């Protein structure tokens, strides 16, 4: 337990230090993200801006922004660490591989949460958007993020084997913006597209989060209508499949000798 905590804190500390060293880049990114949200709000609301109607959009956008940072960081980190040789050093730790991976994921969660909270707070204060804070939203967000991290395990594994996955990661995060109901609820999608959308990593999380946070739906009610069980199943599948694919890719990379190649 102590070694697990040590691994988590060590990775988190390192990530925060490195993130801080890129502070000006990150500040620019955060401003860009805020501006894109304002632009999207006008677009979705037909050229008007209604703070009351923007809450739903902001919730979806925030979850997508989480996904964007996690996906882009995962592929970028793998690439950078392979080039730097620190990836191989990491694999030379006596700690078990799953613990190191958990440490990386946890550190990414912490740093991403900080990065997401900053523009969200800025937008809420600047544009007067009211998002009711209910504790029920927290477990929903956590389950959604667990599924998202499961999904990024697939990308991490691919990065170990194929290396150049930046473009793929960029494509994926852009697709998620439009296909997961981040901007527009999937109720407005054609049935076939809505079905596909529900299988994606953050779609169900966004839907349940909106119900719980904005429409005051209880967790019991979300469980009863099947939306919460599907969210749980969806996240569990992503974690399970992601883990299997990552381990397979890791094994393949060791056989291929590509852990340190780029």
């Amino acid at each position, binding site marked *: 337990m102590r070694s697990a905590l040590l691994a988590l804190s060590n990775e988190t*500390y390192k990530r925060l230090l490195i993130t801080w060293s890129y502070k000006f880049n990150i500040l620019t990114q955060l401003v860009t993200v805020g501006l894109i949200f304002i632009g999207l709000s006008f677009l979705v609301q037909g050229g008007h801006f209604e703070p009351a109607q923007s809450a739903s959009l902001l919730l979806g956008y925030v979850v997508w922004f989480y996904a964007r940072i996690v996906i882009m960081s995962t592929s970028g980190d793998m690439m950078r660490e392979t080039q*730097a040789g620190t990836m191989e050093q990491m694999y030379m730790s006596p700690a078990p591989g799953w613990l190191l991976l958990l440490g990386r994921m946890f550190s990414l969660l912490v740093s991403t949460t900080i990065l997401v909270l900053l523009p969200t707070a800025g937008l809420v204060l600047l544009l007067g958007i009211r998002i009711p804070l209910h504790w029920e939203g927290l477990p929903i967000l956590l389950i959604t993020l667990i599924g998202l991290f499961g999904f990024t395990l697939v990308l991490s594994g691919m990065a170990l084997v194929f290396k150049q996955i930046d473009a793929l990661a960029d494509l994926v995060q852009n697709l998620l913006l439009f296909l997961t109901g981040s901007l527009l609820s999937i109720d407005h999608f054609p049935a076939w597209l809505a079905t596909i959308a529900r299988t994606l990593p953050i779609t169900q999380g966004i839907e349940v989060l909106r119900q719980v946070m904005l429409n005051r739906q209880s967790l019991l009610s979300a469980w009863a209508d099947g939306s919460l069980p599907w969210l749980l199943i969806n996240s569990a599948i992503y974690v399970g499949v992601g883990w299997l694919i990552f381990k397979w890719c890791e094994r393949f990379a060791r056989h291929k000798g590509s852990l340190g190649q780029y």
Partner: protein
Amino acid sequence: MLNIFPTVQDTQPPAIEIKSLSKEYGRGQHVVQAVKNIHLTVPAGQVFGFLGANGAGKTTTIKMICGLITPTTGRICINGYDVARERAMVMRQIGAVLEGTRNIYWRLSAWQNLMYFGRLKGCPRKAMITRAERLLQELDLWDRRYDPVRLFSRGMQQKVAIACALITDPPIVLLDEPTLGLDIQAARTVKEWIARLVNEQGKTVILTTHQLDMAQELCHRVAIMRKGTLLADQPLAELLHLFRQEYYQIKVQGLLTHSLPEQYQNFTLKTDDTTTLLSGPVDQQSALYGLLSHVSQLGLPLISVERAEPNLEEVFVHLIETGRKEENDEKRTVGSLQ
């Protein structure tokens, strides 16, 4: 493997034991054999030089020792622990600076790197801090310990990488071309540091380098690889002594301007204003007489003929050339049979 030399038993128990190690990449017709069935024993408390041209299989072998590449066949034991089965214990035995210009986080300071890698490798906090302070002071980095590593010179960065490999005080240190790209002063510092690791701290150092003069100065034992095959694995002194028996220096009056016959291509020529010194291996007495006859025909008076001790570079070149010739002979034989 070409068994050119008899194996000499070292007195200390081995730090690394490699048995029947092979690594193949690719499949079918595109198989590349990076390492071919090598057996190796690295004695503890010595500098072990792993030499070979680019693509010889050194780095692949080092990475298999570190558990970063899975061997196709064979077994590696580090201080008695099996790399495939006892990974955690193996990782506690080794520290490594792998090939390449980095190994550390350039955005972090030297101190932050040491703390991060120390915790990553499970080093207790108190011991880690004491050791980090000592390493930074000994490597002359103490005054700049809080500066980001990206602002350091190449030599200083390499020192930080070495310090990170040593933060857990591992008994075995693997250094893959640690002086690559360093200036003379920085390379000297690294070299002195390697010698201290072994002489003062009793560590085992596995060193791969193309700087054979450095290898000759530091190594107790060397292994020479070519195309995945181990050509030699000997204590350095014995290796040089073995070659002494077939290594000659011939000094003649005047300047040798003609090239030597093909069979003497391994010879090196050094000239000054009045004499020429020919140094090289002669495997048969008749070949020596043949060479003397050749210089005599050129009208160059003979000054001296001596049996001499070659340096590691000359032995290395000779072994590589021998390996190449044998490979060509094999190909010719196979070709004629087909």
